[in-house]
């Protein structure tokens, strides 16, 4: 499992590269969206998705070419599940599509049966979208 914690502002999007080590199910879970300055949650729907990482000539990941997106409110169960093939650099993306009125900390985590297969790949980023791979 990889987990990404970060701050997202209204109308902003953020992506998180990850690698897949072997074929299997990848799930993405937006688990938390909370105010930066106080306890609680923000009730908002964000767009989560995954795609292929876009690299520059030096191999740096500079973008995320989205393949699948959906709108999701934070929950403690995965909202997005797909089978991804290895030997490709992927990215998880989180975007505000108008629901955020204040900056919020978001957490995207992936539980499901914490498969070791996820870690056969190379983690290229850490931050609050999380991808977990099960076998």
């Amino acid at each position, binding site marked *: 499992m990889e987990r990404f914690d970060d701050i997202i502002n209204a109308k902003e999007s953020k992506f998180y590269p990850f690698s897949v080590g072997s074929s299997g199910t990848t799930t993405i879970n937006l688990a938390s969206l909370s105010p930066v300055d106080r306890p*609680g949650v923000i009730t908002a729907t964000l767009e989560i998705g995954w795609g292929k990482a876009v690299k520059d000539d030096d191999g740096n990941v500079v973008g995320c070419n989205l393949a699948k997106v959906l709108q999701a409110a934070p*929950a403690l169960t995965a909202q997005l599940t797909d089978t991804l093939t290895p030997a490709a650099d992927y990215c998880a993306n989180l975007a505000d599509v108008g629901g955020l009125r204040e900056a919020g900390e978001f*957490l995207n985590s992936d539980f499901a049966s914490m498969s070791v297969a996820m870690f056969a790949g190379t983690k290229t980023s850490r931050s609050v979208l999380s991808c977990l791979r099960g076998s």
Partner: protein
Amino acid sequence: MIAVFAAAGCGSDTPTTPSTTSKTTSENWSSAVAPGGTSSRSFTVNASGTITVTLTGAGATLGLGVGLPRVTGGGCRLGVTVNASPGSSPQISTAADAGQHCVQVYDLGTLTDPVSFALKIDHP
């Protein structure tokens, strides 16, 4: 009679699906929350299922939430919250995947002195 038994014992090769029973774990926790403060506790969900949290005792209405433990610095990143007064029925009931979770009690901005509380967490 013999024929009936033979048919019952050998007449079907249809496999049966093993039933899976998820054992529910109950955890009790008591602590205190200060004005403007938070108090958190982590717990492990062993299988996908339902987490319920019951604030059983408190001297005030408090914020109550369930989420994921912060990666650094302690505390809890909340996914579900309610304003809870103590009672015997769960104030939070939410589906969750397996993994590390946490419960957090926090001041809603009303406390002038620390308040003790007690709660019960039920989870797979």
